[in-house]
């Protein structure tokens, strides 16, 4: 197998995630897009790890940490979304404009 296709695929996922982050209005969906980006990161890490035959498996370990942290982030994120939703019954991020100048 060749390395670059993995990287390009990762880049693609990342960019798609970026697009999602930019256009989605619902916070949950934004979070989903972020997950895409993180997946891209993981693909990179693992692919590189395999490519450089890292005996320390840093790549895979890194990926594991990313996964775990991502899970935690999702938890935090959903909590906040829930909080906001409770206070204004909407989870649309573009309605966050209380702090206009």
């Amino acid at each position: 197998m060749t390395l670059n296709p993995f990287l390009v695929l990762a880049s693609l996922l990342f960019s798609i995630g970026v697009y999602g982050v930019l256009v989605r209005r619902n916070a949950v969906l934004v979070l989903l897009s972020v997950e895409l980006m993180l997946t891209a990161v993981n693909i990179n890490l693992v692919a590189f790890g395999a490519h450089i035959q890292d005996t320390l498996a840093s790549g895979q370990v890194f990926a594991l940490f990313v996964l775990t942290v991502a899970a935690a982030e999702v938890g935090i994120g959903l909590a906040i979304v829930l909080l906001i939703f409770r206070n204004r019954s909407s989870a649309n991020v573009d309605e966050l404009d209380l702090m206009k100048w």
Partner: protein
Amino acid sequence: MPSFDYHALLPEFIIGASLLAAIVVDLVMPPERKYLAGVVGLLGLVAASFPLLTLATCGSIDGCDGGLPRSMFGGSYVVDEFALVLKGLFILTGVVTLLLSVGFIESDRYYEGEFYFLVMASVAGAVIMASSRDLITLFVALELVSGPAFLLAGWRKGDLRSNEAALKFFLIGVLSSAILLFGMSLVYGTTGSVTFEGIRAATLAPGVALAEEPVFVLGVIFVLVGFGFKISAVPFHFWAPDTYQGAPLPVAAYLSVGSKAAGFVGLLTLCYLAFAGVRDIWGPILWLLAALSMTVGNLVALRQTNVVRLLGYSSVAHAGFILVPFAMAAALDADGLGDAFFGSVTYLLVYAFMNLGAFAAVMAAAEKAGSAELDDFGGLSRYAPGVAAMVALFFFSLAGIPPLAGWFAKFVMFRAVLIESGNAWAVGLAIVAAVNAVIALFYYAKVVKAMYFDGVPDRIDADAAGARSLARPLVLAIGLTAAAVLVAGFFPQILAFFGDATRAIALGG
């Protein structure tokens, strides 16, 4: 399993233990006694600072197990002077933040124990950050710093602003993490290592010129951008003022000092250790960020009518000042690097004290005046002279007016950049900084003007306002920071000493 160097890890252990203790206390204590959780946290932090001293002095005491630096886990976790100084700083920040919080949280019937727990957790992350010398540890530590911070920002659950602050902060945070990670993955892939030595070695390895490789450059820049968010440097600063304004004030204080400092620690170690070989990648970029942050931050601060928001932008500007010494690194020799590193660290130390103090004082002022709107500060000196004096003290310190500590921060910053006086870029940046220092004075003075020169607005009943009492811990915090600012103003060596101690790292520590 390598045997642990328990001595070296003692601070982390103590903090970890005490934050667990705090949460336990919170569980068992009745609501009115929950503040004890905070006390536990405070004690833990104080206790955690002792091993720092023993570690620092260990080398010179015979019968003690070895000196600095103490490298663990294949060099991915190192305790050296730099780490110790910054750990100390973070612990102090944590202490002050807790002091600020106690009264504040109590007064508003927030979830108390959890709050302290989260603060402690974030501090723990920062403490770990100071020692982490590989990408993975760095990343996890960073998440440990910011994860709790996201939650803390939204702690005033009833307040929509607070919710907003939390969500903005969170989304931007995870995004920057994503970018950071992607960058890290590329760096890892191109250098084949996650440890800083490994990366450095790879960049310096003969034959391959990684600095020429777009992938590597992309990685480095993404990493920088990720940190740019953490330290809220222009153009990655947008979230900061909104978040500060919305978050509970103690949290804002912590964010503007603790997590910002953590970001800087990461940046410092990455740039001077991992990317030491490719200074001409990050040098120019940080030059740009520094110039932008100073100018935009200051100019925008001019327009603020809410003091906290003003502090937010001022902290953006200060991030720029701290970045200034980085900017010239590309052009520097070993001594130069040492001075630049010294400059940034010392600035960070001074900044931490005066900005914490500033937030504390503003908290007190807002307590008296009833809001943090500039207009409501009018004539504060009439009915709360002490508080007004403190605000003035810290603000002028931030402005860098001698004999308040701020001058020394500015001074070392200028010094670091002018080390290469011949270099036009250096002189240019120095002049930008100088002009900005003057602009900054304008809005700091604006607040002082309101407090001292203007009259009390009608809607404020001076007597009643003057009568409002301040929480003792808050007063204590103000007192501590004020003393630090004054003493360090007359005897900057006190801070310069620590800054100086960290010098070594820049020379490939």
